[in-house]
């Protein structure tokens, strides 16, 4: 079985972030990490590989040329090889442009199961998995909190809902997006980190994927950021110190605000 884990490179949560004059995120190589949610994506790919002998795991990412470092970090967890889709024409892609590229790359790689995180920790859009499925004309099993591939022909998931879950299934090849409760990602071992440096890592350009540069990247983006500002929240900020009388103060506050 061919398993592909699709990941995104994001700035680390603690990194200083700012927009450039073109209102695009200023990406600094030293702050780049695999999207934290995608650790669950990679982990699930590895667990399915362990369950299905002879499977291969490819880690796929669209990003700047420097994202090879991010892919090496991902490969330190495991997996057989990585593919980076990188092209200067891809800068400024929107979510639909990204999905178009991932769909083309998935087709070129060939897959039975393509795994995604439910969203990335930077923009938190969560629309790429479903849009990619649409471009491929394939089913998406989204928000999976459990995944079972029985008989190599059907994917079954437990699907996280607001309360509880339901179950869903789709024939392979299929796309699956995962939520955090699906697994506990492993830490890369020293051996894994060493091995990651020798694993094959291919880079695809738009030409390799047969995509027209005008159909992706900033050229095709249909949304535009016009300004940004720091958020300041004005709050009453009343403080009360000590255990004594604290509960009464909260009750009085709730009554003042007509909540109680």
């Amino acid at each position, binding site marked *: 079985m061919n398993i592909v884990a699709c990941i995104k490179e994001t700035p680390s*949560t603690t990194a200083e*972030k700012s*927009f450039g004059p073109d209102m695009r995120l200023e990406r600094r190589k030293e702050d780049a990490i695999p999207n934290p949610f995608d650790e669950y994506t990679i982990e699930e790919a590895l667990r399915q590989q362990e369950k299905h002998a002879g499977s291969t795991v490819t880690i796929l990412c669209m990003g700047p040329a420097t994202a090879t470092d991010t892919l090496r970090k991902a490969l330190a967890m495991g997996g057989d090889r990585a593919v980076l889709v990188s092209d200067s024409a891809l800068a400024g892609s929107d*979510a*639909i442009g990204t999905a178009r590229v991932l769909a083309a790359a998935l087709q070129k790689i060939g897959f039975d199961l393509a795994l995604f995180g439910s969203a990335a920790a930077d*923009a*938190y*859009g969560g*629309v790429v*998995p*479903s*849009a*990619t*499925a*649409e471009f491929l*004309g394939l089913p*998406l099993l*989204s*928000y999976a909190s459990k995944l079972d591939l029985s008989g190599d022909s059907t994917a*079954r998931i437990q699907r*996280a*809902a*607001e*309360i*509880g*879950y*339901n*179950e*869903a*299934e*789709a024939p392979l090849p*299929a796309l699956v997006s995962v*939520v955090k*409760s699906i697994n506990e990602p492993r830490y890369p071992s020293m051996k894994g980190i060493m091995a990651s440096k020798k694993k094959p890592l291919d880079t695809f350009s738009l030409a390799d994927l047969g995509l027209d540069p005008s159909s992706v990247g900033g050229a095709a983006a*249909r*949304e*535009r*950021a*016009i*300004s*940004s*500002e720091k*958020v300041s*929240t004005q*709050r*009453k*900020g009343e*403080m*009360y*110190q000590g*255990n004594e009388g*604290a*509960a*009464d*103060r*909260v*009750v009085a506050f*709730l*009554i003042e605000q007509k*909540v109680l």
Partner: protein
Amino acid sequence: MSNDVWALAEINNGKLANISLQLTTKAAELAAAFGGSAAAVALGTNTQAAAQELGACGAKTVYASEGEVYNQYLTQPHAETLATLIQQHQPRLVLWGGTNYGRDVAARVAARLGLSIEYNVGEVAVEGDGIVMTVPAFGGAQSVKMQFTGEGTKLLGARQNAFPTSRGGGTPQVEQVHAPAVPAKGAKVSGPFGTEGAEEAGHLGKAPDGHDIWMPAASRAKLEEAQVIVSGGRGLGGPQGFQQIEDLAAALGASVGASRAAVDAGWIPYAHQVGQTGKTVKPTVYIACGISGAVQHKAGMGTSSLIIAINKDKDAPIFQFCDLGIVADLNVVVPQLTAAVKRRKGQ
């Protein structure tokens, strides 16, 4: 292209989700500003009842497509019908909600028809003959103003509870739309929805003596729709700490939230997580107990009308963005507060 504004309603097994009413209310407001008409799209079962509610929120027309296929398959039939309707009627704007359903359907339609799509929108302003959307960035530390470019219908994804509901509408004209056939390569719902898994979702963890702690069903009301939320974090010290939170929530008729630290520690299921990687909530009152207030948590609750924080660390960041900050031991204050609320309510 018309000046009409649509709302994509969400129906879960015959039950209309609240966000549908919020979206329809906003669609009516924007349609009035553009000189167009508001409509809602209701796909699923029990659509006739849904249509009346959507009309009450201002939809002049409801495109209602009744069919079990919408309950039986994820996303694909819904996207099929919505895409066809958009092609037929060319609305200016379609509002969809930031739920699992909304994201999956809108993304497919945007990909299929090549439409502009924006998500996590918290505010919409009409400026000139276009709109400006406000979207949080970097975990809510910044807000970005966005515009759509290009031709065609625009798909605007709203955060849950971004818009209030108002019922100033009337009886809508209901247009029946055929439900599509079963998709050839479909993601099929194969197991029961909801309740069976709810017990698992309500599993708080294990007490020190090894017994399982379960959360009563009543306090598992949807966080996104709760008016009052009592939330717990690392300061609770363990899964048993959530019992106090649970008791206070029960007394207040509130829902229970949690910080990522508490979820990652395994004290409470992910379904309760509030923040950038969890749920976005906007209750009237948010009571944060033992939560330090990291920027990622603030991203999920920072727009609550009132924030009360109880934390023994006077330097906790949450005290920088609360309305009432209590520097005290929550193990003392929370039980006292629960008792005081019960007394006040005569319970």
